[in-house]
């Protein structure tokens, strides 16, 4: 009996040992370590290489821990030294279906700038994925590794405790099994975010380019087709699912309005009026009543913000600027819009009156965007007058005057006090004015700042800097100025992705946009920020922020601000662009290149607080 026991233990140990060896074919990596197609960590993430084993428990199982109402994510990397077919199967069985797995194949983009491969686009695949290495469509001849992004969704009403699952790889007649252990904590990630992350875009023509197959099937009618509007809704949906919002500006710098962004107008002067809401309502109806999000894992709700088509050339013709006819056209049409929105019950969205034009684009003689010359502000005052005339004083519809400000923001905060209620500020210049967020928020204004996404050649944590900064600064949000433009050939000649956080899925038979690793990391960061902020009743917000900053990159809260430079006392039309760069040097140096583990450390801090709370 004893010999049998010894033999059994020996066999068991051999089995475990084999599993460990075999598990080299299948590696789990934390979300911040991206693999290249040859199994190495991409260069920008190597500063976090010490995290490589952080997912593994003592028994070589993948150990995941998460709160409810959100996601836990990691990479799985299949490594095969020679070309071979394989099957990957990832499961965490849960009869109640509260724990769900979303598996994505990571596309390896070849970037022209450094002639390297980076994973970013995430192609949704079934939890059982069958393919071969090298992956045929990615066309990397010596590819030996294929990475997968695993999202484990934990519903907010999941039972507490441990869930067991596996990642199983079948290749070359071998089966490699990697046990997965998910611990679901009591904490629930708040559904509301503490910072709004906006993903901006311009017009719709890019949709026809990125979904060219769909467009070519019916080019004459496509922009009025159900596919077109469903595609727009899908863009809103994918950003919403990733705790973000989406904006599409519907007019150009000279006032040309895309048909789906505005009701149809007819007439002139006092006779100008709306004749059709057809395209507008098909576009915005499901977004403004929230039904576009009915299948979401998050609570469906109307989009919180939307651009209006209002610009100097719409609804009033600029031909009549400064005349009674301009006022009549503007007031009549905007009044009709207010009435339509009210009758539809679209009272949960902020309808933004926003001027994006710049005089350098030759449409109008004043800057609506990033005013530099103070003389331009008189146009804002006039539009405020017109708007007040158009809207009933107690309308339940939220029209909000938005201004995107940089050079002249300090002056605009004063001159446009009570007029502009949504400020979208250039991050560099806002960093001079530490008092501004509180001053603006205290008077009820909404404050965002803007910038652009980091490229795939930056460290994986780089994208977390923007939400973190917004939270540390005490502003309400952050705008990625362009997020849907991955370049002409993102698949084989990638420009790095500094204007894209999302890709067309058409290449992969998906009729919707597909997300990216950067978008996923940003979402997970927002989950952590929501968790951290929810603890402000137990710890002061300042102490939470200070500790998060220190965890992130060993910075202090002061490092996130610049001192007010001398140039700030000059009229903004006398500033030099190069002087602004000098004035923001401090933050540039203090916050340069967060390592790949930067957000991992903040996440650990957030989770340790949850453990304390327990």
């Amino acid at each position, binding site marked *: 009996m004893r010999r049998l026991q010894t033999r059994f233990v020996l066999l068991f140990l051999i089995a475990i040992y084999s599993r460990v060896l075999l598990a080299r074919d299948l590696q789990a990596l934390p979300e911040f370590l991206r693999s290249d197609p040859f199994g190495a960590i991409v260069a920008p993430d190597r500063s976090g290489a010490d995290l490589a084993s952080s997912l593994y428990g003592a028994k070589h199982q993948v150990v995941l821990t998460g709160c409810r109402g959100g996601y836990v994510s990691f990479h799985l990397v299949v490594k095969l030294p020679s070309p071979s077919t394989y099957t990957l199967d990832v499961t965490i069985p849960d009869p109640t279906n509260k724990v769900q797995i979303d598996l994505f194949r990571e596309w390896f983009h070849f970037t022209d700038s450094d002639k390297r491969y980076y994973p970013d686009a995430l192609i949704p695949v079934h939890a059982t994925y069958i393919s071969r290495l090298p992956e045929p469509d990615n066309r990397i001849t010596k590819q030996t590794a294929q990475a997968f992004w695993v999202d484990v969704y934990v519903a907010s009403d999941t039972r507490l405790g441990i869930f067991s699952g596996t990642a199983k790889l079948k290749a070359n007649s071998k089966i490699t099994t990697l046990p997965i252990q998910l611990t679901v904590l009591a904490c629930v990630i708040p559904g509301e975010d503490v910072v709004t992350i906006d993903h901006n875009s*311009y*017009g*719709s*023509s890019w949709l*026809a380019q990125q979904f060219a197959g769909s467009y070519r099937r019916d080019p004459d009618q496509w*922009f009025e087709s159900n596919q077109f509007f469903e595609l727009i809704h899908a863009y809103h949906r994918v950003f919403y699912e990733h705790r973000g919002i989406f904006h599409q*500006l*519907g*007019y*150009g*710098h*000279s*006032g*040309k*309005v*895309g*048909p789906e*962004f505005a009701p149809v107008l007819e007439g002139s002067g006092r006779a100008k009026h709306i004749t059709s809401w057809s395209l507008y309502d098909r576009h915005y109806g499901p977004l403004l009543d929230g039904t576009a999000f009915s299948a979401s894992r998050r609570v469906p709700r109307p989009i919180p913000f939307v651009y209006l088509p209002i610009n100097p*050339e719409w609804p009033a*013709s*600029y*031909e009549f*600027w*400064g005349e009674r006819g301009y006022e009549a056209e503007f007031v009549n049409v905007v009044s009709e819009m207010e009435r339509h929105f009210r009758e539809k019950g679209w009272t949960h969205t902020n309808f933004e009156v926003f001027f994006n034009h*710049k*005089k*350098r*684009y*030759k*449409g*109008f*003689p*004043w800057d609506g965007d990033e005013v*530099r*010359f103070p*003389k331009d502000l008189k146009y804002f005052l006039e539009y405020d007058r017109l708007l007040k005339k158009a809207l009933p004083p107690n309308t339940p519809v939220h029209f909000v005057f938005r201004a995107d400000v940089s*050079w002249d923001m300090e002056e605009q905060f004063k001159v446009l006090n009570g007029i502009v209620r949504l400020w979208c500020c250039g991050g560099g210049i806002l960093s001079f004015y530490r008092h501004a967020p509180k001053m603006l928020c205290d008077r009820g204004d909404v404050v965002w700042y803007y910038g652009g996404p980091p490229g795939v050649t930056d460290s994986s944590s780089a994208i977390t800097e923007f939400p973190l900064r917004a939270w540390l600064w005490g502003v309400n949000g952050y705008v990625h100025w362009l997020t849907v433009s991955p370049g002409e050939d993102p698949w084989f000649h990638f420009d790095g992705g500094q204007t894209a956080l999302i890709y067309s899925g058409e290449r992969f038979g998906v009729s919707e946009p597909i997300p990216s690793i950067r978008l996923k990391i940003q979402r997970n960061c927002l989950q952590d920020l929501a968790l951290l902020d929810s603890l402000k009743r137990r710890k002061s917000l300042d102490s939470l922020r200070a500790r998060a900053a220190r965890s992130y990159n060993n910075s202090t809260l002061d490092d996130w601000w610049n001192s007010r430079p001398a140039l700030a006392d000059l009229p903004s039309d006398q500033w*030099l*662009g*190069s002087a602004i*760069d000098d004035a923001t040097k401090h933050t540039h140096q203090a916050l340069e290149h967060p390592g790949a583990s930067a957000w991992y450390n903040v996440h650990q801090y957030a989770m340790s607080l949850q453990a304390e709370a327990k």
Partner: protein
Amino acid sequence: MKTVSLMGIFMFAILGIAKLSPEEAPSRMQKELDIAARVGSAMVDGDLCQKIVTQRARELMFARDPGDRFLAGDNYDVDDVAFNTVKKTLIRLSHLSSFPADVNLWMPIEGHPGRIQLVIRNKNEMSQFWNWGELYGDMVPEMETVLKTGQRVTVTDKPGWISVLAPVYNSLGDVVGLIETVSQVKMDAHENVK
């Protein structure tokens, strides 16, 4: 007499064939754009046009600073009164066509022969010559002809596009700029909505 002629031209444009067959569209469009261009030469005030771009903008238009790549654009400024007055005239000129058309203002740049800048664009965002976003560009030979000779020139180089270039005069009788009356046989409702 001049008033009667102008009224006649207006009436022709307004009563012109509204729906054109694909074959006849380009030639009829060209005629209407030519009429608008001709009227524009008479109506657009060249002295006012010369006041639009500020001295500061002109001085820095070609300035280069490796530490400030937006130097020229960030300093681009206009006299808004002059701009608005001329723009309103251009918009009214565009109404002379029975189809959507724009009338753009182009001005040569003093001290920079061979270069030209678009000064005013309009709501259909059409131009056969403007590369989106540029402050100034190379002058095409047809523009040079207009500026040198005062003749109107029709350009149909880009497929589906029709532009008529016509001179703008100041009070000294000098050709100081040109207008581009422009349209497309098939409009793209989504182009340049950005």
